[in-house]
C-alpha cells in the first residue's frame, strides 16, 4: 500500500489509469554512438548500441532485459531515463492517461517531471554513491533538487526511506564506505525510491552481490513492488534471477530484441535459437544433471555492433542457420499469443527449454 508519507505529490504524471495498462511504450528506439577517428573527428562509423527496439512495459509488471555484455541493455535503460539522448524512435510514457508523452523528444527543461517518475538503480553500489556524501545527502538529494522537502522534513523522509529498505535511520549521518556491498545497494534503492517513482530501472542491481545478500535484495525488490505499486525494468545477464523475478522477458542480441515472451514460455519453450543457447549455457546447481544434458556451446564471439553481420545477426553462431539467414534479416514478429520472435524458422524449430527438476 502506498502510504501518504510516500506520496510526494507526483500528481499529474503518476496517477494510475485503469483500463489502459501500458506504462511505457518504446517504438523503434535507436542509439548510435559515433566512432571518431583522425584529425577531422568526423564519424568513421557508428556503434549501433540500440538498433530499433520495440517493447512495452505494463503497469505493475517486471520486464526482464537479458543478453550478453555489450548487447545494449544499459544503453536502453539510459535512453529511457534520458541520460543518453536516443538517436531515433519514441519512448511513450503513459503517465496520467490523457496523452502519452514522448520522453525521447522532450526538451531537457521539461524532463524534470519524468526524471521523478522513472529512476535507475545501478550495478556497482560502490562507485555510484558519492563517498563524500552522507546517507542523508545521498538519499535526500533528489528531494532537495526537486524542491520537495528540506530541513527536518527531509530528515524524516530520509529516515522513513532508510527504514523501508531495511537500514537503520540512525545511520543517516554515516558515509557509504562504512557499509557492506548489500547495504550500499539498499542505499541506492532508497535514493531511487525517494521521489516515489512509477518505473524503476534496475541495471544489474544485484549482480555484484554475494549469494546470501543477493537473496535479501531480491526479496526487498519484490516487497517494494507490492507495497508501492512499482513497475520494474530489470536488466540482468543472470537468467536464473530473471526467471525468478520477471513476468515477461526480452532477449537482446547486438542491439536488437530477438525474442520477447512471458517468463514461463521463454524458459520452458524458447522460440529463438539464441534464447535456447543462453538457457543451455547457465550452469544448473545440481551435479546429478550434468551428465544428462546436452549443452549447446556457441562458437565464436558476439558480433561487433559497429560492423554487424548481414541478415540475421546471429547467423554466424546459429546451429540452425540456413542460406536465407545470411541474406535476409528476420523481423521481430508476433506469434499470435502476445509473444514475439525474430527468427525465420521459429515455427519449424523444436528448441529446448529448461525443465523443472527437484534439487
Amino acid at each position: 500500500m502506498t502510504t501518504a508519507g510516500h506520496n510526494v505529490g507526483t500528481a499529474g504524471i503518476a496517477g494510475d489509469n485503469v483500463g489502459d495498462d501500458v506504462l511505457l511504450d518504446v517504438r523503434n528506439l535507436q542509439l548510435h554512438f559515433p566512432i571518431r577517428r583522425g584529425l577531422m573527428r568526423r564519424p568513421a562509423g557508428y556503434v549501433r548500441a540500440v538498433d530499433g527496439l520495440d517493447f512495452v512495459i505494463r503497469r505493475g509488471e517486471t520486464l526482464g532485459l537479458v543478453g550478453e555484455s555489450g548487447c545494449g541493455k544499459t544503453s536502453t535503460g539510459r535512453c529511457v531515463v534520458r541520460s543518453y539522448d536516443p538517436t531515433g524512435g519514441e519512448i511513450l510514457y503513459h503517465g496520467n492517461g490523457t496523452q502519452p508523452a514522448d520522453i525521447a523528444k522532450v526538451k531537457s527543461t521539461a524532463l524534470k517531471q519524468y526524471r521523478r517518475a522513472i529512476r535507475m538503480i545501478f550495478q556497482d553500489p560502490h562507485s555510484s554513491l558519492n563517498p563524500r556524501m552522507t546517507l542523508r545527502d545521498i538519499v535526500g538529494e533528489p528531494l532537495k533538487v526537486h524542491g520537495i522537502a528540506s530541513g527536518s522534513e527531509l530528515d524524516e523522509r530520509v529516515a522513513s526511506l532508510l527504514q523501508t529498505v531495511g537500514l537503520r535511520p540512525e545511520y543517516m549521518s554515516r558515509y557509504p564506505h562504512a557499509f557492506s556491498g548489500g547495504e550500499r545497494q539498499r542505499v541506492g534503492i532508497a535514493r531511487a525510491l525517494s521521489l516515489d517513482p512509477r518505473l524503476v530501472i534496475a541495471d544489474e542491481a544485484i549482480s555484484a552481490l554475494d549469494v546470501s545478500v543477493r537473496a535479501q535484495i531480491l526479496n526487498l525488490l519484490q516487497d517494494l513492488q507490492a507495497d508501492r505499486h512499482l513497475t520494474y525494468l530489470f536488466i540482468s545477464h543472470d537468467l536464473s534471477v530473471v526467471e525468478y523475478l520477471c513476468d515477461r522477458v526480452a532477449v537482446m542480441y547486438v542491439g536488437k530484441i530477438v525474442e520477447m515472451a512471458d517468463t514461463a514460455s521463454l524458459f520452458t519453450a524458447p522460440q529463438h535459437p539464441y534464447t535456447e543457447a543462453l538457457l543451455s549455457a547457465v550452469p544448473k546447481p545440481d551435479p546429478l544433471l550434468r551428465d544428462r544434458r546436452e549443452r549447446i556451446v556457441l562458437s565464436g564471439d558476439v558480433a561487433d555492433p559497429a560492423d554487424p553481420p548481414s541478415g540475421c545477426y546471429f547467423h554466424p553462431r546459429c546451429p540452425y542457420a540456413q542460406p536465407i539467414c545470411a541474406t535476409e534479416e528476420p523481423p521481430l514478429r508476433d506469434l499470435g499469443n502476445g509473444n514475439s520472435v525474430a527468427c525465420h524458422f521459429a515455427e519449424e524449430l523444436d528448441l529446448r527449454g529448461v525443465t523443472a527438476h527437484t534439487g
Partner: protein
Amino acid sequence: MVAESVQTSASPELDHDSLLSVRALQTHFPLDQGLVKAVDGASFDIRQGTTLCVVGESGCGKSVTARSILQIVDRPGRVVGGEILFRRQRRGAGKGPDGEIVDLAALDPKGAQMRRIRGGDIAMIFQEPMTSLSPVHTIGNQIVEAIQLHENVSNREAKERAVEVLHKVGVPRAKQRFDSYPFELSGGLRQRAMIAMALSCNPALLIADEPTTALDVTTQAQILELMRELQDDYGMAIMFITHDLGVVAEMADDVVVMYLGMTVERGDVVSIFHDPQHPYTRALLRSIPTMGMGTRTRLNTIKGMVPDPYDRPHGCPFHNRCGEYMPGTCDQIVPPPIDLDEHRQVRCLLHGGAPSSGVRNEVNT
C-alpha cells in the same frame, strides 16, 4: 576464553591418491587496524587428476588460500600455521602416486625450489587475464618465456610447443596469433591465452581463481568445457575457486565450503548438494534461485551478513547467522573438524565437538 583449536597433524603421509593436502592452514595479515585472520583453519585434499571446487562468499579466504599454496601472499600476510603437503613428480615422469612429498608452507617463498614449483608443477589462472599477461609482449613470446623458465629447451622447440598449446586451448589460427598482443584479442581469447600459458609447462595442479566470474554465460560455458577437455588430455588436477554454486555443480569432483577463513564442510559434489551437513552449506543452497522452478517462489535468505574480518565472532564463525545456533556453546567453542566419512568432513558442533551435557549431538553420516 577457549583457545583457537589448531588441528595438528604430524604425519608427512599423503593418501595414495592425493596430490596436495592442505592441513589446518592459517594465513594472517597483521595490519595497523588489527589482525586479519584471512585463512584460519583450512583443511582439504586434492586428488590426482580431479577437480576440487572451493566455494564461499567474497572475503572468506579463497584467494588467500590459493596464494598460500604458491607462497605468493601479499605482505604483510604470512602463513603462520599448518602444512601444505604436495606430491612432487620428477619432470617427465608420469603423474603417479610416487614422487617426493614436500611441505610448501615450509619452503622459502623466494627459494629455488619454490620458484621451480610455481608455474612449473603448479600453475595459476585468474579472473582478470591481464594479471598474468604482460601488455607489452606478444602472447607467443610470453608462453615461450614461461616454458624456458622451467625447462631447458631450444627456442625452436619452445615456440613449437607454444603454438601447440595455443591451438589446444582453442585459439583459432594459433600460428598467426602467436604474434598478437593481448589487447588485440577478445576477452574470451585472452582468457584462453592465459590458460595456454598456465598449461605450457604441463603442471600437475592448475589453480583457477574465479576464471569465469567476469565472463558471459556463453563464454563461461566455452571455458568450462575447455577446462574439462584439457583435464582429460593433460591429466592435471584443478583447484577451482568460485562463488557460483552452479559452476561448482558442473565442475567439481570434490567440494570445500569456506566461511570466514575456515573450511566448514568438505565432501564429494553429490553429497554436498544432496546431503549438505553444515548449516551454512544448507543455507547457501537454499538461497539460490534454481531455473525451472517458476516465478516468484520466495527465496530463503541467510540473515545478516558476513562479519567484518576485524571483528570475528567467537566460537563458531557462523554462529551469529546460524538458524541452529546453540547459545553458550556455539559462541564459545570453535568447532573441530569431524570426520563423517572417508572424504567427508564438517565443522559444526551439532556433529560433535561440544561438551555432551545439554547439547544436541546428532551425528548424521
